[in-house]
Every structure is written in C-alpha cells, then in structure tokens.
C-alpha cells in the first residue's frame, strides 16, 4: 500500500477566478521522493500546503499510512500529522540558535538523547560545530541544511520541501540538491517537494507529478515524463522539443529506427510527433534518399554539444543537438534523422 494517497483534491480561493486545484490525485510509496512540478500558478504550492495542513481542501481527501489526514472538513491539525516541512525561505526562527531551531520540534526526549540527536543531525547535514550560531550568521546553503535538519529532527513520516533550492545560486544548488537526496535516502524518509525547476525534479525525484492550472498533466518516473510525455505541455516543459508533422514523418519512419518519440500532438490543426533535440542527429544529405532536410539557421555552442537550429520545408523549425566532431556552419543543408538506440554502443 502507498504511504501517501491523494484523491481528487480540489481547492478554490475566494478571490481566484479559477480553482487553484481541480481534482488532483497521485500517490507515493514509502522512502521515495516525489516532485510536484509546474509553472507558477499551477497549484503545486497549494497542494503542498494542503498536505502540510496549512490549507484545507474543498473536496477530496489525503491519506497518510492508510488514515485520512485531510478532507473537506479540515482533517488532522498540522501539528498532529507528523509531517515535516522545509520552507522556501527556510523560515529558521531568527531568535533561536541552530541548536534550538533543530530541536524545536523534539519533545518528550531526555536531554542526553536530544544532544545525541542534535550532533547526529548536524553531522548528517555537514554542519558539526555550528550549534551555537544564529541563523543570520549562516550562509544560504548552511541555512538550507539547518532547515532540513530541523524538519528531520522529529522523524516525520513524510517530509515536504517548498522550492528548497530556489534561493541558492546555481553551483551551490547542484551540490545541495545531491546532498539532500543522499540525506533523505540515509534517513529513509519519504518526501514531496515542489519546484518549478525541471532539472531539480529530474535529478532528485523518483516520481514526478507535472501540474498545470490546478490539474495533473502526467505522473510518472523522471525518464517517463521526460521521454514519454503525454501531451505537448509536458513535453515542452522539460526542455525544448521539436514538433514534426506526420506528413514529414513519413521520411523518418522509413529509417526504421526506434527512438523516443513523444505522443501525437496537434499544433496548428496538424497531427505529428514530438521529438527531443538529442534524439535527432544530422547526416550528409544523399540525393534521392527520402530524408527530411533543413538549412542551418543558427548554431550555438553549449559545451558538451552544439545546438543546431534548422529551417525545414513548410517553415518548420527543428532543433538538433549535434555531438559529432564535424563542423556545422550556417547556410549548410543537412539531413535530419533520428538517433538509433544502439548508436551509442556501436560508437
């Protein structure tokens, strides 16, 4: 049975025009990490606050460990749920030291045990010896870690993280992200975190729930939502994606390769396939071969690859991530073919 079960949650704010949440359902196994992703206004933070007990849903219910903790009549009070939360701005109590912050939620425990727990947690988050500092004496990354330690201290059944990495700069962010994932693994704590950063969610989560305007668009493993998005929104949310109409795809099909192609989608009334730039590659165009060709419009260097933007017949723009050695120049004409799955092995 799942640890967390969210069934048909709806919520409308008095002043909002449309519902913040509209029949949201998903579930989470124990010890796993789930990411709620979506643009701002997608309802992901509202969902998190309902899980925490800081908001009340209008309809639906939330079950934790088989018991209803939230429904339209309110449910269990926030403090009685055994759910921890890491806030976006960390919300460390400014008037308390790191030690008092971390142990804030720990009660009914002998002083010795508290001290042990404190040193264990500070060790875990890599801040030994910081117990007597005040929050304003810490750096952004350190605050994030203290916030994590504080939320973990009462040994919650479920940990919620609200945009936990958004206040950190890019380099710190990657390090803290990997650390957080490691820490949650070690403590065997299930977690739900909210982010608008797709990279964060792909890197950390075991399961991703993509939301848009209060509805779940897709729920699945990171590979699934990335490589097999169920609709154009999800496809483009996780990075650039090419839309290739079927009448052009005739040529692709003849290549008889399996590639990760997205679902059929409608763009401008035409049906076609969604395909990621890294699933396409460039080939020398051969006369007579039925291959989709395009003229190079723009090339930008992205370190590990070159992003090549081509203009194809029918005013179609296609992006290809080109990783081979040969040079690409603006104005050249190239054939666009899908990457064969065994290409990497054959070298």
């Amino acid at each position, binding site marked *: 049975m799942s640890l967390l079960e969210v069934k048909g949650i709806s919520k409308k704010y008095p002043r909002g025009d449309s519902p913040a949440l509209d029949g949201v359902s998903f579930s989470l196994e124990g010890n796993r990490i789930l990411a709620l992703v979506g643009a701002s206004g997608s309802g992901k933070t509202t969902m998190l606050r309902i899980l925490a007990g*800081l908001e009340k849903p209008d309809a639906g219910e939330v079950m934790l460990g088989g018991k209803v903790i939230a429904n339209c009549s309110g449910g269990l009070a926030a*403090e*009685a749920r055994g759910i921890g939360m890491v806030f976006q701005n960390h919300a460390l109590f400014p008037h308390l030291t790191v030690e008092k912050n971390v142990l804030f939620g720990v009660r009914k425990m002998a002083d010795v045990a508290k001290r042990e727990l404190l040193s264990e947690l500070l060790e875990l988050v890599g801040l030994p010896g910081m117990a007597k500092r005040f929050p304003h004496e810490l750096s952004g990354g350190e605050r994030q870690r203290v916030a994590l330690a504080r939320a973990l201290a009462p040994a919650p059944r479920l940990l919620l993280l609200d945009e936990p990495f958004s206040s950190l700069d890019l380099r710190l962010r990657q390090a803290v992200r990997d650390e957080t994932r490691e820490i949650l693994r070690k403590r065997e704590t299930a977690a739900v975190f909210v982010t608008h950063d797709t990279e964060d969610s792909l890197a950390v989560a075991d399961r991703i729930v993509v939301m848009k305007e209060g509805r779940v668009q897709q729920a699945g493993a990171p590979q699934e939502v990335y490589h097999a998005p169920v609709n154009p929104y999800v496809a483009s949310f996780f990075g650039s994606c090419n839309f290739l109409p079927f009448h052009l795809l005739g040529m692709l099909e003849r290549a008889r390769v399996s590639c990760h192609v997205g679902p059929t989608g409608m763009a401008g009334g035409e049906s076609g396939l969604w395909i990621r730039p890294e699933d396409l590659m460039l080939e020398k165009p051969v006369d007579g071969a039925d291959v989709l060709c395009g003229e190079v419009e723009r090339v930008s260097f992205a370190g590990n690859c070159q992003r090549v933007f081509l203009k194809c017949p029918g005013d179609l723009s296609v992006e290809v991530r080109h990783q081979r050695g040969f040079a690409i120049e603006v104005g050249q004409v190239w054939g666009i073919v899908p990457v064969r799955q065994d290409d990497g092995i054959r070298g």
Partner: protein
Amino acid sequence: MEIRRAASAELPFKVVAVVLALTVLVPVGMVFLRAVQPAGEAWDAVVDYRLWGYVWQTLLLVVLVTGIALVVGVSTAWMVSAYDFPGRALLDWLLLLPMAMPGFIAAAAYVDLLGGLIPFYIWVRQEWGIDAFLLVQKIVPWVFASGILGMTLFPYAYLSCRAVFARQAAGAIEAARLLGEGGAGVFFRVALPMARPAIVAGGSLVVMETMNDYGVVNLFGLVPLTPGVFRAWGEGEIVVAMRLALFLMVFLAAVLCVERWQRGRRAFGESDAQGRLARRRLGWGKALGAVGLCAVPLVLGFFLPVWRLSRWCMDSVGSSELSGHAQAAWNSFALAGGAVALVLCAAVVLVAVQRAYGSRLILVAQKIGLLGYGFPSALIAVGVGALVVFLVEHVPGAGMLALSASVFGLMLAYFVRFLAVAIQPLSAGFDRVQDCYREAARTLGMGRLGALWRVDLPLVRTALLAGATLCFVDVFKELTLTLVLRPFDFETLATRIYRFTDEGRVAEAAVPAMALVVLCLVGLFPLSTLMKRLEK
C-alpha cells in the same frame, strides 16, 4: 473531528475578544443611554447661555493651536529634511522633545508669568483706555494657552511631515530642483502639496489632543467643550454633561472622517522611492536662520519650562511635601502598572491570538478596540463615571466599596482610551513577522497557541515592549480622566501637579513635574524607534 477541536479551542478567545470590544463601547453606550433622558430646564439654560460659548471657544482654540502646530511642525520638518546646517542632526532629534512635555506641566511653568504682565496691563490702560485694557486681558490667556499647546503638540506634525519630505517626496523634490525651481518654489509647489495627507494626519492628532485638553485651558480660564462637560458634571447635571460629551464626539468624529478620507487618497499618491533627499548646505547667514527657526519652538516648548521647573526644584529641596509626592508617585505607578497589564493582555488576545487563528470575529473586535483612542476623554470620563455611580447605587454592597468602584472606573477608562496605544505597535510588529515562522512551528508539532508563545511573541517582543512603555507613560501623565474619576482624596502625580499649579503653588509642584517629564522622555525612545521603522 480535529477541526471541531480547533474551533472549540478558539471559542473562549472569541468570547473574550467580544467582551473586550463591548467594554470599549461601554462608556459611549452609557452616555447615549443617559443623554436621551429628559434634562429639563438645566439643558435649556445651558443651550441659552453657555453652549455657544463652548462651541466658539473650542473652534477658536482648535484653529489657533492647529495653526501654530502646523506652521512650526511643517517648517521645522522642511528645514531638517531639505537643508544641511551645523547642528541639524542634533535638532532633528531634539525636535521630538516637546512630546515629552505634557501641556499642563508646560502651563505650570508659564502660568506665573501672567502675574508679571500687570505692568503691561497698566501701560495699555494708560495709553489706550479701558476698552483696550479689557480686550488685552481677554486676549492674553488665549495667546498663552494656544501658544503652549501649539509648542508642545507641533512634533506630531513634524514627525509625519519629516518622513514625507525625506523619503516619499524625495524624487519629486529633486526633479523640481533640476527643473530650476528655487528653495521656496520647491517647498510651495512640490513638497507642501505632497505632504498634504501627512499634514492632515499630524494635524488631526493635534486637534484631538487640543480638544481633550483640560489642564491648560482651565489654568488660563478658557472654557471650551471639555471643561464645559466637567462643569456640568460637577454641578450634578449628568444629562447635560452627557449631551455636551456627545457634542464633543460629533466634533471629533468629523475631524477623524476628514483624516480617513485623506488617508484613503494617499494610497494612490504614495511612491516607494528608495532614495533619501540630498540635503543642500546652507551659507552661514541662512544656517543661523534655520537654527533659530528650529530652536525657538524647542526652547519655548521644552527647554524654557524645564529650566524654570528645575530652578524651582532646587528651591524646594527639603520641602514638607516630599512624602505626599512619593505617595502620589506610588499611586501613579500602581495605576499605570495595572492598566498596562490589562491593556497588554487584551492587546495580545486581540492581535496575537487573532493572527494565530486567523479569526475574522477577533479582527472586528480589534478594530472596535482601536476606536477607543478616537473617543473624547471627556466622553469616556463621564460615561465611566455614570457607570460607577450606577454600580454604587444599584449593586448591593458596592456603596461600601466606593473606593474600589472608582478604581475600577479609572482602570476601565484607561483601558478604553489606551487600548489602541498597545494594539497599534503590536499589530505593526506582527505585520513584519512572516507567516512562515508560525507555519514552520506548526509542522514541527506545535499547536496554534504553542507556536504563538514560542515563536510569534518572542519575535514581536520589541513591539510588545514599545506598546507597554507608551501605554505606561500615557496613563502616568493622563490628567483629564484621572481628575474626574479618581477616588476621593486619592492623588496621582499628574493630579497633584495640577492641583498645586491651580492653587498657585507652582514651585512646590516642580519636583513631581520634573519627575513626570523625565518619565515621558523614557517614553520617547520606543516612539522614535517605531517612527523610524514606519519610515522604512
């Protein structure tokens, strides 16, 4: 099930909040109840012979005092915000000092000068005749009373305008300077119009304080509405006193409505300019003029009274009145301490518990609690007084406890009048504390009240302390309410100072007066820090 438990935990607070809100309305309710009763000939007599006098005296006093306070407050605020001159930083701070000088104490320091004017009167009579002599004799008390009130109340206008000149209007003022407008042009064409809402806000506080004043006007023999209410009350014409008090309230309500209306408009005009106005350096001549402009009200409103009082203090060393002073001081401390405890507890329920539960009912109660500050002192005094009389007459055994009944009345009156003084800083303090701290505490297993106790209240402790200090000082120096409602033969420092002054024994009042001024200076600290924060 859980949600029901939360609701039932909230219920007692809701009940308390409603009771607190109703308590604030008790004096007004009492006044209304009694005012509609038949008053008979006494009312007719007052209408025929006195009412017009009360009204014109009130109007004239308000116009004079507000005029003086605004001219002084706005011009000094402009000087210290727009120009730089030697001593500017010091004067910027010193100009708050007159706030620590209660009007009746300043009046005590000046009232003996009336006697010194006798040669002047004689000269007028010899030179200009009997009519001029009578006229001058009528005018002089007005000059003194309005001057003293104006010089002690101008910091209200100074404070509200300074923030506008230095911050909000900074961008516009600099733009005007770049467009080639000179000093006076900038002031009249840009700064003054932009400061209008602040002038109205500061001015309405001055109007309120003027209408509530009893000590100053009484010492100089003027009879506007507030002393009129107490005169009727003293004569036993309860219904007449009630009707006059209602009159006063209508007056004040009109002023507050104007202020509200202006504040509503300010929301549009407010710019969130980050910069501070760059001050222009003045040459020696002009700098001297600026220092003089700021120093004159400061000397008249603070330093001269302090200097005279401290000289009398020296003279009265070893006076036999000292033990009486000590007793009165103790009474003041006890009353102020009790009132602060009461007011602070109520403010915590109305502000802090409101935040913890997000209750709308308690928010409404809080708004009602704020109303008390807008009620005229005279109305609160006679409303509570009538309640005490009613209790003594109708509750068996209360007559025996007349003393405790009137102490209860005093507490009630202080509570109604000064609840807002504690609510405002506390509410401002909570505005600065983000919700996430409370929410974090709750996800860590704290109940609503636990989170309040361990997180919110420690975070707003400076605001709590500021509210307590302001409230303490306000009760300590409160004259009008105490004078009417105090038990028989019971004196506080304020009433003792007033009585001595009234009896012409000003020198003997110097020691308690100086003590009171020093205490009021303490009250300036939280006020000035609060103002600084509001400015940000």
